[in-house]
């Protein structure tokens, strides 16, 4: 069994979101970078669990990004990846990034490709679906449970207003979210061994970016809270009904 896990770096969830250069660039100053939580907690950890059940499983990681992604990818190796690929290019266009992952994926003959359901910065939720289409593989999005039964994947996925369970023969691309696994912390042995695990840098394939970010905006600031006394709940109802017209 060979599994490819797509890893992205994202700002820590507590990062202050600010922009520079006339609101055209994200202010990275003072930002802590982490593995995108959906990639780490769910996709990667589930893959590690599958390897623990079947030690012959091989876990490859792929990230598309510049050299500043390496600490994050080393952390993913420390958690339990076997080797990693970094495609040496930077982009925020999902078609371009998916094309790079596709190039890595088609050479590796993977049985299973995991992504997180989205990154918490760009919130694209596009990479898995695109890579699947490029590889002509089925795609299961928003998985909440993942199991293997021989060479069949048994997956629960979120659908509008509920959940569905489905089965599909490998290979398949799956986007993972809460429920698939539980967060883990890397141990010392993992951290030590990660240093010597292969991290291969590959140059990008020729591809076009089909979108580009022209600027950013912050949401308008709230006017401030109107407090109502706990003994005056009727007033809150009146405000919600008459002023906010929300009920």
């Amino acid at each position, binding site marked *: 069994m060979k599994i490819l896990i797509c890893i992205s770096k994202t700002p820590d969830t507590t990062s202050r979101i600010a922009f520079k250069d006339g609101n055209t660039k994200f202010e990275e100053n003072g930002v802590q970078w982490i593995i995108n939580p959906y990639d780490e907690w769910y996709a990667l950890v589930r893959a590690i669990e599958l390897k623990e059940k079947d030690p012959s499983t091989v876990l490859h990681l792929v990230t598309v990004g510049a050299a500043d992604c390496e600490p994050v990818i080393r952390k993913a190796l420390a958690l339990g990846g076997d080797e990693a690929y970094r495609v040496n290019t930077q982009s925020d266009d999902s078609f371009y990034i998916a094309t790079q992952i596709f190039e890595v994926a088609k050479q590796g003959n993977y049985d299973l490709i995991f992504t997180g359901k989205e990154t918490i910065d760009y919130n694209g939720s596009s990479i898995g679906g*695109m890579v699947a289409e490029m590889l002509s593989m*089925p795609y299961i*999005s928003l998985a*909440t449970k993942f199991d293997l039964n021989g060479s069949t994947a048994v997956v629960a996925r979120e659908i509008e207003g509920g959940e569905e369970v*489905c089965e599909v023969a490998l290979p398949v691309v799956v986007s993972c979210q*809460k429920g698939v696994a539980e967060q883990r912390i890397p141990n010392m042995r993992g951290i030590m061994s990660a240093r010597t695990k292969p991290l291969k840098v590959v140059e990008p394939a020729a591809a076009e970016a089909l979108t580009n970010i022209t600027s950013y905006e912050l*949401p308008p600031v709230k006017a401030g809270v109107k407090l109502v006394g706990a003994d005056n709940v009727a007033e809150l109802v009146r*405000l919600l009904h008459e002023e906010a017209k929300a009920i």
Partner: protein
Amino acid sequence: MSVLIFIDQAEGHVKKASLEALTYGGDLAKQTGTTAEAMVFGTVAEDLTALGRYGISKVHHVSSAALDHFDAQVFANVIAKVVEETKATVVVFSHNQTGKAVAPGVAAAVKAGIVTGAVALPDISNGFVVKKSVFSGKAFANVNISSEIKIISLNPNSYKTVAGKGMAEVIELNVPVPESKIKITAVSKVSGEVPLTEADIVVSGGRGLKGPENWGILEDLAHTLHAATACSRPVADSHWRPHHEHVGQTGVQVAPNLYIALGISGAIQHLAGVNRSKTIVVINKDPEAPFFKAADYGIVGDVFEVVPKLTEEIKKMQAAS
């Protein structure tokens, strides 16, 4: 140029998120001086001509029963064929569970630039710039799409549905449907409840409710308001509530008209998932709770006392109006 909107339907009925996408697509067509058409797959129980009320002229229907079950790969394949057939240059989806599953595949198939989580019509004064939600609701990005075919996936609850007059022409399309490799073995719907991402009002509970046995007061309030229920992450992690109710940066992102937070502190990761809500009400016994800074209305008080009173007062107001 023409606009093509994907209509998501379940058990034969068109969903609210799709009506938003239809209205958006109809308005986009007006803005660009072109026509809007829709596509819908599988067995449909509704009168499709009525979708003309949302500003579209044609509905392309691929009726194959094989499309009654959703499979992202199959749907992407069929949609790509309809895009080709109709020569559409903008394809609109709702960024709901179905849209998230299928829109990227279509983008890859027809080599389209895609913007997911769009919150407004594109600005076409200089390119084709779509505003989308980023950093889990903490900011917006304006994204230019430069490819010939463009795909927009619209965030639910960010575009108002407007039904006017008009009838759409229904065209039965005969498109070959590839065989699905996926076998669906079970479907469980949360029946009777309002789906979280589509809800106008969301009532959400945090650790301040102390335990799952106390959710009755929250459910009564939600029931009175026809609201969906949600919770903070630790509540879902402790299995007090199901995972699909977890809102925030690492859970569901919602943008209802009204979000009522009960016993939730308002951590930055929680706010990220709810701060696109139009009106936020916070009830928390700690006046220093960070949530008050993001709220429009608040009560500093004990949820166990305040919430039942709130439900009562709302019932009174509903009876009077």
